[in-house]
């Protein structure tokens, strides 16, 4: 597949439903025992959250995935900068997406501004991803 990025183009977005079972499996796969992700009384009564908190690095993963799916076999992610600014909670549906902000045809380097946002359009996890497209042979 050939990609033809242009500055300002948006890539296909993807929705993720934040499900309890997924949170459990994700955090268990890391060995992350932080109670805010699975212990509802602790998350709400002790920490004062409105629900179970979606793991921050999982939203970081969704930033990668939305770009990686767009790239397919045409290129590879070479770097990311991102931060978790606002929490998401189990039961929410969040959307990942991005916009191409730079493309160097000579080197194949492409830069995208990426986000995960909630259904109130708040950006939870903003970031910048760089990728390298394979040169045409």
């Amino acid at each position: 597949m050939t990609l033809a990025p242009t500055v300002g183009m948006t890539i296909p977005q993807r929705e993720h439903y934040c499900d309890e079972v997924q949170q459990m499996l994700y955090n268990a796969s890391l060995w992350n025992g932080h109670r805010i992700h699975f212990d509802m009384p602790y998350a709400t009564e002790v920490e004062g959250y409105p629900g179970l908190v979606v793991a921050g690095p999982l939203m970081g993963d969704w930033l990668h995935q939305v770009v990686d799916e767009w790239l397919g076999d045409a290129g590879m992610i070479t770097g990311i900068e991102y931060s978790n600014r606002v929490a998401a909670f189990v039961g929410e549906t969040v959307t990942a997406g991005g916009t191409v902000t730079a493309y160097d045809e000579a080197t194949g380097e492409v830069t995208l501004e990426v986000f995960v946002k909630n259904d109130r359009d708040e950006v939870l996890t903003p970031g910048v991803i760089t990728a390298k497209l394979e040169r045409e042979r």
Partner: protein
Amino acid sequence: MSGLLSDEVLSHIGREGAPRREIVTRRDIRKYAIATDNRQSKYLDGDVAPPLFHLHLFWDVVPLNELSPDGVSIDSLLPKFPLEKAMAGGLDIRYCKPIRPGDWLTATRTLTNVYEKAGRSGPLIFYEVLMEVRDDGGELVVIEKTTRILR
């Protein structure tokens, strides 16, 4: 500056944790890919690891009795900071080489910086941890800088 950071705390800058060496397995890649909602077959089949898999591979595996009551593992690289409430942090990651089943990878973490800044509602402490992941040939695979903010 309000001088929150004692010389003792600052003396931890440059401290390096013991290197950790782990093997990548197809099963671990598959579990990570499924748990993150991935839908690309190369990852779901475990042929190659998706980006960010190094996080899974090097999350500290600590005994249950060493977790704090909220279930968090205590990072032995860090000094005891005078502020403890963690705020949003940031990550800066460079991917140098793909990760595949059978790879032995070694991660080294260094506390590279500790500093304070005046925030809108009081002082903030920032710290930075650099993690380098290398293969057995010594080649860089992933380099990750984490910045965390305490208030």
